[in-house]
Structure formats: structure tokens, C-alpha cells
């Protein structure tokens, strides 16, 4: 029996994000949202472990209340119960403040053998919540895990680093951040989706956790956003075209030599 909690973020689907070409502002209002990709890998891994060893799989999310729809997908995948920690005062929280809220929520939900997070979120990609949470909870951390195995009270993980792959062991409870390589997340069946509607999503506000307003939102954040703009992409976009592949290639070769980017 293993008790696992996954921290799930409702992220903006970055592949469908558009920007206003004149102002370079992102059109965030109607951008679709979904469970952040690597969090789905964390969900799959947790559910897989539960199927093998038995136990309970819960999720915690700090998000606006509209995240309920997104969380149904986690429940359909096989999560037993989800916690949504939602309060207008959390708006504009950075990772310092968000990790504080998550840590307070986890302490209230209970004790866990494993806490899983994605290696980073697809929208902000800062890879900080997992490490910050491990520090706040005072438990061992294993980042960038691409393989997990449980043995008694120990968890072993293979980590993919730049210059090596490292196998590490730690005594549970452990917080682990997982990469995309760890598994292929399942697509829930129709039955599972139907069943998910009967599962519980607990909604907590700041007051339920005794969180004061000065520790969250802009006031409780250490980093302040000045602006968010689409990057400038100024490219020449010159079309090279010849009668034959040979002619096209020759024109291109000449253009590259003229640019001074080939040859010595």
C-alpha cells in the first residue's frame, strides 16, 4: 500500500498560443488549458504503482476554480481524489508563494510515501516547485527521474543528467520529479471518464489553510513580472527557386557564400 500525491498544474496549452503581431502581446484570454505534459507522466507513474502495489493516489493543484474540468481528466486516468486550492488572493503568485501554498495543503491532506511532480511545467518551465516543495517539507528529492522502482521503504530512480545517467536510492517519503521518458500516459476510457464524475474534488480556500494574504499573490512573491512579449522574429524569408534541384542548390550555395556563413 503506497500513498502517492501528485502536484498537478493546469497549464496553458502552449502549442495553441497566439500573439498579436503588432503589439507582441500574447492572447491568453482564450488560450486552451490542460494538465501540464510532464505532470501527466507523473500521474501515469503514480497510477501504475498503485495498480501494482495497491494504495491511494491523490492530486493537489493551486489554480483558479476553472481547473475543475481539467482535474476530471486526472480522476479519469485513475486518481482517487483531487484537491483544488483556489483563492483570488493567489493570483500572480511566483514559485516562492505557490510552493508555500502547496506545502501547507499537503501538510493538511496527510502523510505520503511519494510526492510526484513533472520535471517542469510546459508554460513557465522553471522547474522550481518540486525542489522548493521538498525543501519546505524537509524530505529527500530526486529530480529528472526517467525510471522508478519501489522496494520496501526505499525508492530507486534513474536520473538523466547531461553527462551521465545516475541511479539513486532514498528512503521514503521522497519527492520525485519525472521526465517525459518515464512512461506513455494513458488515454482514459469512456467508462473511466464517466466514473470520474462521481469522484470528489475538494476545494480549499486560503482561509481553510490559514494562509495570510501577505504570503501569497504579488505581496508574497519574490519575483515580479514586468512584461511578457512574443519574441521578435525578423527573418529575411527569401525564397530560393530554380528549374531543377541542381539549380536551386547552386543559387542557395551562392547566397550562403555571399552571407559569409560558409567557407573559411
Amino acid at each position, binding site marked *: 500500500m503506497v500513498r502517492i500525491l501528485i502536484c498537478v498544474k493546469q497549464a496553458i496549452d502552449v502549442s495553441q498560443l497566439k500573439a498579436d503581431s503588432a503589439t507582441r502581446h500574447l492572447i491568453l484570454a482564450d488560450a486552451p488549458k490542460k494538465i501540464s505534459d510532464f505532470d501527466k507522466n507523473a500521474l501515469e507513474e503514480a497510477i501504475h504503482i498503485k495498480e501494482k502495489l495497491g494504495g491511494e493516489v491523490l492530486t493537489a493543484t493551486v489554480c483558479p476554480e476553472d481547473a475543475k474540468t481539467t482535474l476530471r481528466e486526472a480522476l479519469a486516468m485513475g486518481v482517487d481524489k483531487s484537491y483544488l486550492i483556489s483563492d483570488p488572493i493567489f493570483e500572480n503568485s511566483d514559485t516562492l508563494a505557490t510552493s508555500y501554498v502547496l506545502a501547507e495543503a499537503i501538510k493538511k491532506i496527510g502523510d505520503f510515501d511519494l510526492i510526484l511532480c513533472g520535471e517542469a511545467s510546459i508554460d513557465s518551465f522553471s522547474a522550481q516547485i518540486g525542489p522548493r516543495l521538498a525543501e519546505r517539507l524537509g524530505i529527500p528529492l530526486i529530480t529528472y527521474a526517467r525510471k522508478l522502482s519501489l522496494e520496501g521503504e526505499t525508492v530507486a530512480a534513474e536520473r538523466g543528467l547531461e553527462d551521465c545517467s545516475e541511479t539513486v536510492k532514498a528512503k521514503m517519503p521522497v519527492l520525485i520529479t519525472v521526465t517525459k521518458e518515464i512512461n506513455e500516459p494513458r488515454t482514459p476510457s469512456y467508462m473511466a471518464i464517466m466514473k470520474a464524475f462521481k469522484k470528489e474534488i475538494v476545494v480549499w480556500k486560503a482561509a481553510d489553510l490559514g494562509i495570510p494574504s501577505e504570503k501569497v499573490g504579488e505581496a508574497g512573491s519574490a*519575483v515580479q513580472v*514586468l512584461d511578457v512579449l512574443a519574441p521578435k522574429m525578423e527573418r529575411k524569408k527569401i525564397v530560393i527557386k530554380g528549374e531543377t534541384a541542381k539549380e536551386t542548390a547552386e543559387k542557395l550555395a551562392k547566397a550562403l557564400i555571399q552571407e559569409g556563413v*560558409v567557407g573559411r
Partner: protein
Amino acid sequence: MLSEHSGILAYSENKDLILELLGKGSELASKMDTELAAVVLGHDVKDQAKELVGYGAQKVILVDNPQLKEFRVEPYLSALTQLIQKRKPELFLIGSTKRGKELAARLAARLNVGCVPDCLELKIDDQGRLLVERIVYGGNAVVTQVFRTKPQIVTLPRRRFEKSECKAGGPGEVVEVSDVQLEPPKAEVVEIKPIEIAETKIEEARVVIGGGRGLDKKEDFKILDELAQVLGGQVGYTRPLAEDRKWFTEWIGLSGHTIKPELYIVCGVSGVIQHVAGIRDSKIIVAINKDPEAPIMEMADYIVVGDLYEIIPALSDALRKLLGST
């Protein structure tokens, strides 16, 4: 409360990256009119510390301890936490390796401060504030942020900033710190398998030829290899070829290698934002694709609509001829 912090500290366990941090660090130190110091952690690493003296750092802070012989997070983290608490820098630069990013986030948690990872630009504005820029939304946007806490912890990616131009042996000194309490590791490393790293790193190549799903077989990469040979460049791949087809273990893109060569020739790649974010600083981009509507075409300097299986070998021939005759 903020004013008690001064100076810049730089640390990376990666020996190339620390020189890049010192390069950017010296520039910032002169703008901020403050001192730059490098941190070296390890065992029997006095020579390494001495070598760093002069690379733009006025001081090299050394913690030399048998418990730091191998990189283990908790002892390294506790050493850095104590150095920061003692020296109170206003800015701490860390190399954006996976180890470095974990250190940075945990350090920020321990000190209860902010941390901005993978900064592509750091500037001082007219109010003297440090502005940091990074890519978010999968490459769709650049966010500019400022800190409200100090030390400001920032991680810098590889190959983004020039290495320090100063030479070893310049003015400066090694300061050894011995009164540091090191925490034991919380996880035990049971096995390490080194990954074979290509001798020339793709980040350092002047010319890169990128191949994507438009290549049908792994063997077909030989036409890209041939072009790379003619140009003295290197071949790179997209994430689907590495992850879905398992042909390779590395890829170019936001989650893999970020490159900025003089010339990037990209063949059979549609140009998802994840890939584009990893190549956007290339000087000249040439896109070769059958599909004139592929997003990659929108961000190329030279666009060729055609079959890469015909164009690439013809391009190798043409370049061979033209370059050979000059």
C-alpha cells in the same frame, strides 16, 4: 534591508560554464560597481581554484573538503547556503545544468528568496535594478522580471554568454573557507553510467544541419552528414526523432540543446515552437521542406520548397564546387 547585500558570486560545477558566468559576471560587476567572486567546491581542488583567479573574478572562494569530492546535492547545497549567508551577495549566478538548477531552486527555498532560471539576458535599468529575461510559454514569449528579494538567484544556460576574456594568473586571490557545516546526502548514488558525449559539442558548431521527421530512415542522415562534412559543421536532430523513433539520444530544442550557429540548415522539420525556441538565435536559418506552409518557413532567411532528398545532395555538390574553386 536590501542594502546590506553587495557583490556577485558565481558557481557552476561545469568547468566551461563557470568561465561563461565569469564573463557575464564581470560585465555586470563593472556596471553595478561591485566585486565578482567565483566559488569552487570539491576536494583537492586548490589548483582548480588558482586557475580561476584572474578570469574576471577578484576572489575565488574555495571550500575544499573530502565530503565534497563527488557532486552530491545536500553537502554542496549546505556549503553554498552558508557562503551566501556569510557573504550576502546581491546576485548569485549559477550555471543552468540540471544539477545547477536543482541547487538554485533549493537554495532559493532555504533563503526564502526568488530565483529565475535559464536567463537569456540580464540588464541593469536606469533605476539600477537588475532586469532578467527568459523564455516562457514554450518559446512563444520572453518575460522580463525583477527581484524583490536579495540575493537575486539566477541560472544561466550554457553557450549563451561569452567566456571571460581575462587570462588565468591575473590579479586576485583564493580565499579558503573551512568553517562550513556540510549536510550528509539524503539520497544514495548507487550507479553512474557516463553518457558518451560527442567530441565537438553541437552548441559550439559554426554550422549545424538539422534533420526532422521528413527523413524516412536513420540511414538517410548520411546525406546530412555529407553536407556537414563539406561545411565543417555538425548534424542535429529534432525531439521526435530521439523520443518517438529512438534514433538518437539528444535533440535540438527548448528541452534539449539550444544552439546559435552562424548557419542552421533545417531539413524536413515542421518547426514546432519547442524546436524553434532552441534555434532562434542562429544567425542565418535555411529551411528546406516539401510543405510551403510549414511553420519553420516563417522563421527562415532562405526558404527552399522541395524534396530534401534531391536538394541536400545537390547543395553538397554545389558548395563543394564553389568552395573548392575559391
